[in-house]
């Protein structure tokens, strides 16, 4: 495989993904599958591995995917090429967001005193809050009912599909958040990770 043409194509593919994937990390998935099929750089099951790694590391999923794919493709040439490709694929992915973000920022700065823009945003804020609530709910379902609701045949079965350990930890975190307002999310996350390990969650 030629190093430079591959690199250019890699950057091009991730640039397009960053440009057209609307709505955050998981929206990049269909694009990734397509890149894999088109170029043969990785298979569908590689994408599943990438998702697993992304979900077990911090940071935006799209960014993780780009770095991981870039490294995987580049390291076919050499280790250093892997690192270079990983970085360049990531930068290609975020470049469209950065440019569009700058354009919108310029727009917002110019119209920040416009009653029309402010009025529109006062309608968007409840919508934004609703979307985050819905996202939180879908996380909650996965956390408290990891096996789904298929085992729910009677009311009593509700308690057998409930993840008790998760419920107790959630209660503990909730109490902490309510009574210790200054608690930094970083410490709560690290403590929860430790509890997860100690109690084999």
């Amino acid at each position, binding site marked *: 495989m030629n190093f430079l043409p591959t690199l250019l194509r890699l950057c091009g593919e991730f640039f397009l993904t*960053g440009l057209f994937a609307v709505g955050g990390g*998981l929206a990049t998935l269909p694009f990734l599958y397509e890149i894999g099929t088109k170029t043969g750089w990785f298979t569908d099951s590689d994408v599943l591995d990438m998702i697993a790694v992304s979900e077990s590391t911090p*940071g935006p999923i799209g*960014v993780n995917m780009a770095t991981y794919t870039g490294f995987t493709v580049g390291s076919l040439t050499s280790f250093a090429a892997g690192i270079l490709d990983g970085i360049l694929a990531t930068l290609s992915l975020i470049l469209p967001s*950065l440019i569009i973000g700058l354009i919108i920022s310029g727009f917002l700065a110019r119209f920040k005193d416009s009653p029309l823009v402010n009025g529109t945003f006062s309608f968007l804020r409840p919508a934004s*809050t609703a979307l985050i609530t819905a996202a939180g709910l879908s996380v909650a379902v996965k956390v408290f009912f990891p096996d789904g609701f298929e085992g729910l045949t009677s009311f009593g079965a509700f308690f057998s599909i409930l993840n008790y350990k998760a419920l107790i930890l959630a209660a503990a975190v909730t109490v902490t958040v309510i009574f210790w307002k200054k608690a930094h999310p970083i410490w*709560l996350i690290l403590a929860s990770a430790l509890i*997860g390990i100690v109690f084999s*969650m």
Partner: protein
Amino acid sequence: MKELMRLFGTFAKIGAFTFGGGYAMLPMLEKELVEKHGWVSEEDLADYFAIGQCTPGVIAVNTATFVGYKLKKIPGAIFATLGVITPSMVLILILAAFLSNFASYEIVKHAFAGIRVCVCVLIFSSVWKLGKKSLKNWICWIIFGIVFLLAAFSDVATAILVIATGLLGFVITLIRERRKKA
């Protein structure tokens, strides 16, 4: 330059502790940007999130760009954006190079089971803070209810929900402004 490095550092911290999608970033954004530095308001975050839902690209990057630009124009946007992606980029390179089966370790799985519970609670605590600022009257509550039901129980794309609400808000504001003038 010092300000730019502080932007980079703050966003690197946010990037390093955002587990999950863009919404999982909200608790970190609130703590660091609103409560600690006072760089933006709770309302600003809600606005950025709404814009991020209907513009292409990574939501975390969009948010970093907006905040960076607000404080230090284009250089600020670039430093904040590079900050938010650097920790995950470095970590993924290390893992891909040396620990490619990282995700299958039992200890990692247990740690992340714990982290997911914490992130879930933190998201709801953020929603609580956000709701206090954004749900000011009955119209807001109706919008919240409808968008929530559609987002949670239907297949309508979130971008469509945001654009539709935005258009509705635009038209209603336009009518209100006209009446004020008349």
